[in-house]
């Protein structure tokens, strides 16, 4: 559906293709894309002139008009496709697969105009460079007075500023045009974001449910069975006539009660490690490393503590990943690296095991949901034969 941005309010900083997760495009790519845009505009100008001259007469003739226009539009569509590929290649723009062919001609003409204007502006920049060379030569030869030089520099500076402003504006226009005709409109962006939020909200509910299920399973399979077994031992001890045998059973029951306590501590820790609140992430992760039967090397590089939700998510990602590796990978060593870069916390868990970890498995998918709820991203690389690498990025300002 065509989006009409005029009737919808959008936060100022939310324009075009940038979402919370859009990666920055490098300056080099943008510059190359801009120059490529000028070249394609020249190509389009050539096409319009040449093909227009050849097909023009046929377009005027009613009987041949339709066929001529059809032929003309084939090239227009091809050129439009080329433009969109250029935008995707240099600017990482995303365009829906469905294209409205009606829009190809108006888009191409607007881009042609903008592109030729860009060519002029870039040409002026070249002209300015020539002037700089001339002024410098004048300086060296001494044919230029100090006041003349100052006037030239001032004038050149102002013109350079204006020209660069023009380039920036035209570069922006190039992107806006492509998006206006073919890209997701503001409304679509918002719809997409809403869909994303709904999905992650449903996901977090699922994750919470499966966590609860796991805690229930832990209590039932571990603590409760042990308690029943303990009560049974005591019951048997009471029934025994033989005091020696009864004493032996009591001793067994006592040992069993200690096992129950250990089990209960473990379950409570798995449900929520209290160390996270009292002692912070490094201490809680040290606990994870201690509990693991495979050596875990934890490297934490954080200048300030993370926000609480991010910290908790980070802890569970590491803890679950380590548990998984211990259970399935057969690795000899696990590495955990946590650092903060450009407003994101980056978590990397690697092991040198057999690989083949399933991102859709219950543990990992639950983590993915948890991370997605914080607008983060998780990727699992685990080729058969290993090594396995799980990376997580969570934004934290």
């Amino acid at each position: 559906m065509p989006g009409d941005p005029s009737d919808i309010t959008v936060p100022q900083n939310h324009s075009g293709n940038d979402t919370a997760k859009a990666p920055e495009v490098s300056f080099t790519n943008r510059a190359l894309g801009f120059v490529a845009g000028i070249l394609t505009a020249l190509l389009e100008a050539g096409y319009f002139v040449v093909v227009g001259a050849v097909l023009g007469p046929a377009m005027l003739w009613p009987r041949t008009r339709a066929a001529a226009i059809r032929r003309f539009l084939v090239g227009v569509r091809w050129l439009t496709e080329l433009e969109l590929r250029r935008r995707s290649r240099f600017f990482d723009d995303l365009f829906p697969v469905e294209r409205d062919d009606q829009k190809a001609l108006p888009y191409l003409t607007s881009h042609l105009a903008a592109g030729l204007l860009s060519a002029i502006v870039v040409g002026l920049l070249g002209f300015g460079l020539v002037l700089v060379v001339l002024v410098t030569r004048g300086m060296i030869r001494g044919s230029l007075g100090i006041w003349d030089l100052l006037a030239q520099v001032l004038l050149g500076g102002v013109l350079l500023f204006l020209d660069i402003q023009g380039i920036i504006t035209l570069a922006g226009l190039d992107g806006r045009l492509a998006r206006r005709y073919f890209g997701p409109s503001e409304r679509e962006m918002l719809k997409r974001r809403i869909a994303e939020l709904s999905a992650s909200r449903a996901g977090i509910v699922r994750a919470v449910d499966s966590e609860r299920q796991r805690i229930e399973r832990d209590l039932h399979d571990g603590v409760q069975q042990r308690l029943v077994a303990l009560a049974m031992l005591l019951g048997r001890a009471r029934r025994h006539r033989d005091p020696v045998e009864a004493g032996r059973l009591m001793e067994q029951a006592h040992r069993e009660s200690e096992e129950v306590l250990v089990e209960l501590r473990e379950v409570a820790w798995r449900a929520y490690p209290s160390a996270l609140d009292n002692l912070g992430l490094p201490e809680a992760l040290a606990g994870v490393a201690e509990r693991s039967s495979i050596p875990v090397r934890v490297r934490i590089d954080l200048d300030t503590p993370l926000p609480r939700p991010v910290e908790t998510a980070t802890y569970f990602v590491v803890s679950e990943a380590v548990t998984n590796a211990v259970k399935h990978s057969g690795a000899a060593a696990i590495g955990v690296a946590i650092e903060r870069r450009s407003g994101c916390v980056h978590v990397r868990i690697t092991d040198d095991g057999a690989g083949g970890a399933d991102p859709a498995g219950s543990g990992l998918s639950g983590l993915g949901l948890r991370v997605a709820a914080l607008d983060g991203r998780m990727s699992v690389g685990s080729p058969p034969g290993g090594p396995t690498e799980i990376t997580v990025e969570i934004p934290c300002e």
Partner: protein
Amino acid sequence: MRIILAEDSILLREGLIRLLTEEGHEVLAAVGDGDELIREVEARQPDLIVVDIRMPPTHTDEGLKAALEIRRRWPALGVLVLSQHVEKNYATQLLASDTAGVGYLLKDRVSRVEEFLDSLDRVHNGGAAIDPEVVRQLLARTTHVDPLSKLTNREREVLDQMAQGHTNAAIALKLHISQSAVEKNVNMIFEKLDLTRTTGYSRRVLAVLQYLGS
């Protein structure tokens, strides 16, 4: 008696084997899932089976499914089911047709060794063993408030015991009253609740349970 156990927790399985052997029973096999249980029952023909409802692979009602199938194929075999929680739905499925030689107990009841062994005997002798907790919940949840409020306290106590599957003699012992007093109470209960007089203890249990559960 000759018993087969189906219980996925190894710890409990060992405990049960010990307990039963100490009591002079013979444990023919101890298995960890429903399919294996059916295979063992077919191969060894025990007198009674003790089944945990929650077993692998899905940890929901595998044990119950196996128990129902075993009841269908070998009706004479005593079946005692152990449940994690009181699941009215599971209990009704199990007790739907006939309560002869059926038990439904909460798993924790195993720790009350005497009661557990007594339940085993009742189920083995073609009686019923319904967990007091199940009966209590049925009594609490019952929609027949009025007829129940007509019962005296003593009659309620007797009803509670009767629903659990105890015989008149056992009820007399438990409540410290004479057997004839129990019989009088039972008659009054059947009259007040408008239950059809049924013969045989297990049918009596079924009648009461159906009354409470409906």
